[in-house]
């Protein structure tokens, strides 16, 4: 046995051993440094699909043309990857200069860590032009930490042709009518609902909406402060969702399905293989991107009311997207945001169908009839609740997603779901 071979074996062993505790961070160091008199604004966003992608790119180009000393480094990153990279970067005590945020619990943690700039004073002159619902997710303790760019709500996107084929003439307005619709679709040999079980967040919409319809907005707000999710509305929401899941309404193999892959939730609806999905205002554009798109066959109806529930059918559940500014970002970052929020520019992106209006008086720019329905439902909403996985602290939001996914998979009872979320909420 030669020396070389023995050393090699030891070396291999040692290397593997030390690799035992993998999972370090890869926070890319970056700084908004002015090199050569130029100011760079690094901008992380999730505009990876059209038409938003080219709008954002155009904004960056136009702004740079007007301000030759500024370089906008536009980095569109896919949603899930964005969240993972952002977490890593935050944990090294940094943020990009300008970045997408959904507000709520995650933004609050970033604020508490001193990573985000308070915009209340600097943007006060033009903050008043946004609708209150659009600004709400970014307000922490009376201060505003981001500028809204999109706002919307979750509802059912359905295939009119498939509904007609199953003999459903109008979209259901109550939960029992909804369950009937699912049964009729199944009887007609149509997959009623597409669901991305692998990604968990689409499933939490059902539970959250049911809790909202049964207990009203007050129940959700109450739970956010007393951390008690074992109250009747939450358990009842679980029971109703279990009733639905027991009908086996989802596509084959939905537990492993992703959202925007070629065989995922959006593509199934977009290709006419499933009759509906519960999704936010971006659903049509993802259906077009991942699948063929339904064109005029696509319709929208709000989440039905639950009989005897305290919540109104006009209460909206959703969220938007906005841009926050890193604590150490150059002043140009805010100026660029102001530029993007100019009515002319916002009107353009609204007209393209990429986002819904966050500015007052731009509602008429919504061209697509379905999105116009969403915009109308939103502007006439009797109340608004931010996505639970954004509104609550991240651990609670993820527990909601995880537990509801297990409920749908038949691995947890409605009571266990309520218990698990309560435990996490109390320990945060």
């Amino acid at each position: 046995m030669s020396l070389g071979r023995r050393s090699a074996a030891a070396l291999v062993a040692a290397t593997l051993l030390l690799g035992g505790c993998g999972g370090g961070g890869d926070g890319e160091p970056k700084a908004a440094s002015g090199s050569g008199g130029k100011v760079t604004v690094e901008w992380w966003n999730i505009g990876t699909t059209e038409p938003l992608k080219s709008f954002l790119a155009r904004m960056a180009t136009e702004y740079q043309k007007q301000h030759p000393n500024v370089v906008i480094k536009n980095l569109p990153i896919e949603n899930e990857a964005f969240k993972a990279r952002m977490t890593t970067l935050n944990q090294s005590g940094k943020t990009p200069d300008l970045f997408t945020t959904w507000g709520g619990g995650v933004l609050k943690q970033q604020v508490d860590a001193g990573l985000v700039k308070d915009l209340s004073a600097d943007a006060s002159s033009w903050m008043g032009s946004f609708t209150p619902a659009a600004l709400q997710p970014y307000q922490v303790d009376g201060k505003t930490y981001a500028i809204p760019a999109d706002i919307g709500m979750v509802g059912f996107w359905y295939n009119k042709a498939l509904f007609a084929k199953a003999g459903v003439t109008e979209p259901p307005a109550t939960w029992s009518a909804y369950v009937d619709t699912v049964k009729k679709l199944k009887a007609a040999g149509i997959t009623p609902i597409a669901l991305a079980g692998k990604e968990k967040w689409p499933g939490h919409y059902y539970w959250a909406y049911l809790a909202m319809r049964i207990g009203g907005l007050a129940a959700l707000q109450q739970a956010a402060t007393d951390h008690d999710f074992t109250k009747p509305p939450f358990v009842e929401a679980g029971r109703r969702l279990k009733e639905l899941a027991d009908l086996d309404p989802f596509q084959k193999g939905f537990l492993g399905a992703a959202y925007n892959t070629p065989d995922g939730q959006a593509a199934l609806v977009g290709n006419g293989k499933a009759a509906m999905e519960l999704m936010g205002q971006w659903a049509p554009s993802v259906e077009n991107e991942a699948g063929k798109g339904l064109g005029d066959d696509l319709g929208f109806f709000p989440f039905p009311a639950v009989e005897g529930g305290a919540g109104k059918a006009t209460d909206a559940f959703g969220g938007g997207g906005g841009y926050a500014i890193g604590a150490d970002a150059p002043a140009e970052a805010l100026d660029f945001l102001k530029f993007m929020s100019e009515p002319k520019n916002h009107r353009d992106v609204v007209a393209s169908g990429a986002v819904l209006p966050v500015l007052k008086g731009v509602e008429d720019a919504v061209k697509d009839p379905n999105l116009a329905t969403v915009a109308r439902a939103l502007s006439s909403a009797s109340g608004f609740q931010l996505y639970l996985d954004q509104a609550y602290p991240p651990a609670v939001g993820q527990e909601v997603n995880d537990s509801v996914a297990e409920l749908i998979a038949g691995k947890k009872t409605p009571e266990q779901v309520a218990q698990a979320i309560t435990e996490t909420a109390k320990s945060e």
Partner: protein
Amino acid sequence: MRAAQDTSRLASPPGERRAPSPAAPAAGAAAPRPSRGHRLRGRLTIAAFLLPALLLFGLLVLAPILVAVYTSVFKWNGLRGLPDDFIGTANFERMFADEVFLGDLWRGAVLIVLSLAVQLPFALGVAMLLNQRMRGRAVYRMIFFAPYILSEVITGVLFSMILSPDGGLANLVLGTVGLESDWLSDPSTVMPSLFLVMTWKYFGFHMILYLTGRQGIPHEVTEAAQIDGAGSWQVFRYVTLPLLGPTIRISVFLSVIGAIQLFDLVWVLTGGGPAHSSETMAVTMFQFGFKRYQVGYANAISVVMFAVSLVFALVYQRYVMRRDTEGAITAMRSQR
């Protein structure tokens, strides 16, 4: 024997060890003793050459391990500088009361057993076949080894398409004989499916290890056995297999450590689902660290992962690989 002496010498107090007349009779005594200054210069040279590597090693390997161990006893979201909410062993108590984590340990054990019982014997069998003189042998070797070169993420994406329940290649082909399955989408089939993909990806690597080991066995040995009247099974069982021992031992080691740390493939294929049924320790750690911002708890999981790997590595090296690595670390001095 020499190894035992070395260990005892390392264990003795440092002052005694530095003494000019140490109890190192085996190697040192025979060589002419160098002068004190000469030896000091020698040590300085060694230190100068080691320093850069040691610094990097300390900064990139040791420091993160220490930070992980330190933060594992805190409740910490990873933001706001160093943690200050000390909670003692609460993270570890929580971990060993958590069904998901206990499930991770069980699933890890299952994957290890399957790897050792199915994947490695299969790789060995293929290696023996491809060691025969046959047409196109190099092509086969290359084809079987190719999956190992692919990144885990590409493998994951590839198989999530192949195993897609609706219109995936696997169901398209197997559907013709009525053997459709939900593969990764069903809690009861996800682990076998995952193991299938793991085997596809890694058996080629172990095959190459065995092939190389097999080719290191001199022809004379097997020929001698054949002349003595041994059949091909007997040659394999009593000559090839024992001589492949060192290769098999390192291959088992790599396989086990790989299974303990499995992450990328699972993350891309299933994300740990459905309903945690394919989650591994590393996936759980990622979930808590990056999705829930419970970095203290995630670090506690990583500490346990590290401890499991470390204990396995030490025990395995001490009792199984002893003959293969004996003297590897101390050989330098004996040659001086």
